[in-house]
């Protein structure tokens, strides 16, 4: 079984400090959610969430105790590479989504596409790539835009600027 320490060959062998810390975070989250259930008036609304939250706190407590008593592999997946590019990717996606109601889906999507393309670019910008890649970006965005608006009849936001 992959959850057995013997079989976790791909996992690191350092003690699971991060897992213990995450269990602590989950306990805090469960406590906040438990407090939120006190604002609910109908028993149907809180009876099952409370049962789940109690189970979550118990499992987190067991994980913390296990890690303290018998430190074992963390199961964490180490990730190498550029953190800046990771942050830029998420920022480009979040930024374009936030702008969507203002500038419309087409412009926001095209902007996100071009920005993410530059974030993911590791090859040198040859004259060919400078011309072909942006054109390919525009073509993909146009095809998907037409597919969703005309064929699937999804009302993509046109944006406040273009209303």
């Amino acid at each position, binding site marked *: 079984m992959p959850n057995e320490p013997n079989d976790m060959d791909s996992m690191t062998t350092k003690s699971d400090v991060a897992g213990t810390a995450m269990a602590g975070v989950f306990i805090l989250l469960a406590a906040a959610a438990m407090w939120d259930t006190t604002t609910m008036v109908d028993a149907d609304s809180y009876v099952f969430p409370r049962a789940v939250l109690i189970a979550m706190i118990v499992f987190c407590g067991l994980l913390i105790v296990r890690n303290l008593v018998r430190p074992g592999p963390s199961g964490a997946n180490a990730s190498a590479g550029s953190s800046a590019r*990771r942050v*830029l990717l998420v920022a480009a996606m979040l930024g374009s989504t936030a702008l969507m109601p203002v500038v419309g889906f087409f412009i926001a999507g095209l902007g996100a596409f071009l920005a993410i393309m530059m974030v993911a670019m590791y090859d040198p910008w040859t004259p060919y790539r400078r011309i072909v890649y942006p054109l390919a970006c525009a073509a993909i965005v146009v095809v998907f835009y037409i597919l969703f608006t005309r064929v699937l009849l999804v009302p993509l936001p046109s944006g406040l600027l273009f209303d």
Partner: protein
Amino acid sequence: MPGLEYLIAALTPFHIMLALAGVVAGTIVGSLPGLTATMAVAVLIPITFSMEPASALILMGAIYTGAIYGGAYAAILLNTPGTPSAIATTFDGFPMAKRGDGDLAVTLACIASVVGGLVGAAFLLWLSPPLAKVALAFGSVEYFWLAMFGLTMISALSQGSLLKGLIGACFGLLLSFVGVAEISADVRFTFGSRTLLGGIEIVSALIGLYCIPVLIDMVATPDRHLKVTHKTGGFRLAEALAFSWNYKFNLIRSSVIGTLVGILPGAGGSIAGLVAYSEARRASKNSKDFGHGAPEGVQATESANNATVGGGFIPTLVLGIPGTPPDAVILGALLIQGVRTGPTLFTDNGSTVYTFIYGLFLATLLMLPTGLIIGRYAYRTIITVPKSMLVPTVAFMTIIGSYSIRNSVSDVMIMIALGVVGWFLNRFGFSPSPIVLGLILGRIAEQGFVQAWTIGAATDELPAMFFGRPISLAIIAFILLSLFYPLIRGRWAAMRSSTDAE
């Protein structure tokens, strides 16, 4: 054989064309993250109004079966299950693709999907009325325990420790509570946020938790997304066929499991693949390879999830209870056509039903050539397109796909945020699968729990309500087995080795 004349009716050029078009459209739709079988079937309903009911059903059934298979592409090549029923396909499909066997995984998935689809359709044809009674035997408390079974099983199956899997499952359940409560209309766990009022949409969350972490890691390094170890000219069909023949028992067993679990409305589709995967691993001589790219794992999941198509149609047609969301859409289309589902459907509308079932066989068989060709194209695209084009294309698809489910910008924001949370959790050893399944099964579990709790409290028989029914006790036994099986197996192995030493 019931109604051979209907087989001939299903094999008209028009029906063959409909089945082919439906399978191709469904496969393409299913392979795109965010586009679901439900959406594809719903969009096509107006087209079917002008058709005969049998023709309309063949088209919708073909799209549905194609979309379920199409979900395997994203699961294998991008580690993103196109549909919830393909979650377990990621366990071995993606590791296979990472090591350079993506083409073999896609071809194996195609063969397994065809076999599973045929077995499901065969059960639908011959055993519908008796099997429909199984769905009726399940009450609210049984659905609660079934949901718990799914969650304990995925916690035990996914990478990482069991405790982390269980914590992830609880976190997924917690996410499913966010928004306005279905039963009492209380606003829960939004903490004042308007974005969270609509709740967390399952497919958006699925895309976020699986796909965004892959994208985040793809942009971080210049390495190729998938390893290519050989010339990618063919389907590796002979290799896949030989493997499928050698592991035919796994294929048939998983297909039967998929059909039987698929009969259970709502919970069936997402649990069927997991049960089949778990059983395949338990029975396999290579159980240690599972989770690290075992072809048997892909075979088990893909045959089971396509078998749920036929299985899900059993309660839909015989009882009028839709097994899955696409079944619900198809049921609506049938009602518009004036076809009344129910126990007498097979006698009153035999012509429509049997022509449709034979059409489903036809569509499933057509999935082999079309699936292989589209699968080969999908694999070649993923390995040849430069990363600087692949990443923005997939990211754009996640945004447009998440938006289009409920036409909501909030869903896109939640999808991205959950993706970042999923990436961090994965680094700390928390797998996304239990979280996603918790989110999917949360509603079923809560409805079952609250109904059982209310009835039990009213009749003053709360313990008997949860622990006194035979089916519930059987499911509880399976839950305990899934939780303690590693321990039991370890003890058993230790006992055997000590006996051998003596």
